[in-house]
């Protein structure tokens, strides 16, 4: 009895949260606009081209406002009316969707998107499951190996996305993406949703940059300017250290945190060239090439000078031990993902406003003089992407379902309501035009860095094949622990990479 009461209570609570995020639309089942395909395709193509330029020029609102999302949310029609989209089935259809939105606000926002979709297409049921982030990869493996894979699921791109595709759990949506309307995603997001020339995912999680958060109060007290070059940064570190501060708050037990320093130093020293070469291990590419050695040596030099906290390899980012070092005023800077803006702000908004500033990773002046681009940035342009697993028993594509998933992912996730809520919670959609709508000064920096990037390199630990990721992460421990030399670390990663390539 009691069990039932609580179940009902919970269900009610869920429904309430979902309704809150719901747009006002009635459930008149009208066919979605099919439209003139060829014309639209051309139109879509031109949009892409122009907005590519637009990004480079960092153009204003008018140019890049997302056309697909200029929703006419009238009280009678669907929010997809009048758009160039596949016509969805009128038969009953159930879609299983897996996300990792266990926590508000992401939870209510993503449930809201699904609710709006189901209200517009009452014959389609979306079975939305919130998985826990920690064990999500395991859950997917278990479900996929048992023939119970969800029809639409979140992932972070990179190596795993390729693996899902190769194993037959991700539809190739290149043609659909070219043919139908979709939000005008930034190029980096499209690139990170693509593997082997095929579009495999629709981004929806917003972009995450990687920048240096710093304590404005400490910088002012020490008379330190925001560093423009790595030399400036080192000078600032020396000064901070002198004054008794730990220059960088880093919790490297998590390993991907230390990797951020490594990735950025490599990127500043060589753009994307050396990493790309090391990734393929062709044409002399290697993790022992100059940029990698430079990055590793720099880091070890900084470790020796005490620029990182004591016991850096024992602190974990998952337990917010790096943030703790900023909060208690013992550390002055922290290179981290831009989600920290939202995180710190929600911990204490007042403190955040008073103390936290952001700057982009300083430039390598020597490399710059040698012509190396200084705007290759690290981060993720898709944040989270949805891939679709819509296949029939015989292995052929279940087009009805795929169409429905496509519409859900492009038009309900990524719609105005959704994006507004994303912005409110500090996530910037990876859609052109949103760079101009950012209020928070720190987020503004993050977005500017991102939108000015010539290329955004996805985190190594997501980009590399999973077996190499493990080695790379261990190397980060050894690097910061001064247990291995830069060369040894490079060789270890080379070996792992070669092994992974051989196994392909």
């Amino acid at each position, binding site marked *: 009895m009691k069990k039932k009461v609580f179940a009902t209570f919970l269900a009610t609570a869920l429904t309430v949260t979902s309704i809150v995020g719901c747009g006002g639309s009635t459930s008149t089942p009208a066919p979605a606009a099919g439209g003139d395909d060829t014309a639209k395709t051309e139109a879509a193509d031109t949009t892409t081209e122009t907005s590519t330029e637009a990004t480079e020029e960092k153009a204003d609102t008018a140019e890049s406002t997302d056309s697909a999302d200029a929703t006419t949310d009238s009280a009678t029609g669907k929010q997809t009316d009048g758009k160039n989209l596949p016509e969805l089935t009128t038969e009953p259809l159930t879609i299983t969707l897996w996300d990792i939105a266990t926590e508000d606000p992401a939870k209510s926002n993503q449930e809201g998107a699904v609710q709006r979709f189901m209200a517009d297409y009452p014959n389609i049921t979306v079975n939305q499951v919130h998985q826990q982030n920690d064990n999500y*990869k*395991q859950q*997917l*493996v*278990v479900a*996929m*190996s048992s023939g119970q*894979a969800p029809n639409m699921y979140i992932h972070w791109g990179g190596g*795993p996305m390729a*693996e*899902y595709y*190769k*194993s*037959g*759990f991700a539809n190739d949506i290149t043609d659909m993406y070219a043919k139908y309307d979709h939000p005008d995603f930034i190029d980096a997001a499209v690139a990170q949703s693509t593997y082997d020339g095929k579009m495999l995912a629709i981004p929806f999680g917003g972009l995450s940059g990687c920048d240096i958060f710093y304590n404005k109060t400490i910088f002012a007290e020490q008379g330190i300017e925001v560093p423009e070059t790595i030399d400036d940064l080192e000078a600032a570190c020396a000064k901070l250290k002198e004054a008794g501060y730990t220059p960088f708050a880093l919790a*490297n*037990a998590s*390993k991907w945190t230390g990797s951020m320093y490594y990735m950025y130093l490599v990127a500043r020293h060589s753009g994307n060239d050396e990493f790309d070469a090391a990734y393929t291990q062709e044409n002399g590419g290697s993790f022992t090439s100059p940029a990698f050695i430079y990055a590793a040596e720099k880091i070890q030099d900084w470790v020796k000078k005490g620029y990182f*906290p*004591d*016991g*850096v*390899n*024992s*602190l*974990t980012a998952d*337990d917010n*031990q790096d943030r*703790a*070092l900023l909060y*208690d005023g*013992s550390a002055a800077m922290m290179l981290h993902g831009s989600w920290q803006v939202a995180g710190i702000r929600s911990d204490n908004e007042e403190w955040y406003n008073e103390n936290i500033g952001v700057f982009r990773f300083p430039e390598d002046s020597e490399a710059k003089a040698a012509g190396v681009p200084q705007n290759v940035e690290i981060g993720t342009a898709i944040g989270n992407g949805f891939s679709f697993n819509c296949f029939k028993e015989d292995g052929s594509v279940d087009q009805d379902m795929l169409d429905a998933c496509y519409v859900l992912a492009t038009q309900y996730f990524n719609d105005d309501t959704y994006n507004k809520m994303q912005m409110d919670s500090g996530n910037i959609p990876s859609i052109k035009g949103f760079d101009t709508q950012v209020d928070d000064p720190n987020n503004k920096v993050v977005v500017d860095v991102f939108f000015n990037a010539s290329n955004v390199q996805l985190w190594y630990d997501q980009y590399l094949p*999973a*077996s190499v*990721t*493990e080695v790379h*992460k*261990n*190397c980060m*421990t*050894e690097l910061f*622990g001064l*247990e291995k030399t830069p060369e040894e670390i490079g060789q270890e990663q080379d070996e792992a990479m070669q092994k992974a390539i051989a196994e392909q």
Partner: protein
Amino acid sequence: MDKSNNMGLAQAKARSTAKAATVFLLPALLLITIFIVYPVVDTFVISGYKWNGISADRIFVGLDNWKALLKDAMFWKSFKHNLIVMVFSILLQIPIGMLLATFLDAGGKKFNIFKIIWFLPYLMSSVAIAFLFIYALATNGGIISSLATIFNGKRTTIDLLGTAPNALYTVIGVMAWQFTPFYMVYFIAGYGNIDTTIYEAAVIDGATRGQYIRLIAIPLLGPIFKTACTMSLIGSLKYFDMIWNMTQGGPSGSTELMATYMYKLSFQQFNMGYGSCVAAGMFILITAIALLFNKVFKVKEDY
């Protein structure tokens, strides 16, 4: 005639014993077969394939995974870690658990408050334990480093979780913290199970309680002691939970155990075939060690 009748009786008795045994054992065997034996067999089968864990195609590779396993430095390193954990778990958890139980047994009911508080760690989930110890052992503001700073008179950092040799022993300590209370309760029950007439007889013979415990009770606890060791042994050879939450096998693989290694391969690195091989190898090693342990112990028990 007489003899055959006897034989018949003996046979009938054996048959009825077999029947009774079957009835009693059936439910357990059924459940174990479905939920454990079958998956184990499956694991052995998968260990013969190259398989990413999700794809429909598996490539049969025969004994390739096993050959690789024999040469896999990481596997043997994690096995070595498991052995260290095992030795120290037995050396720490069982004697301390025994001491605590003896203390409580000697003190009787008025020591209940000790019993309750001492038991607390076992009630906590691994998530909570991992979190609390990560902070308690932190180089920045953790208990150990703070104490060291006080005693040393200057800022001292003791990095227990971030450096290779320390981390494993730290984790062993935390495991002992978590599991010792269980062995304490286990030994209390063991004491409770000893026939009280033995105690009475000892008292009549003029033994003090201490003598009774040392000379009579502890030897009588032999079998209980042995099962406790076996449990600790197996438990520490397949340990996963708290280590996963605390170090994920780091720093640089220094707390990698067979189970964490297997988990990473199977579920994070798309290498289910080899991961299953690791699991199967782990199963064989643990069983072998447990059997060996029981054999060695049996000899001693016979005196």
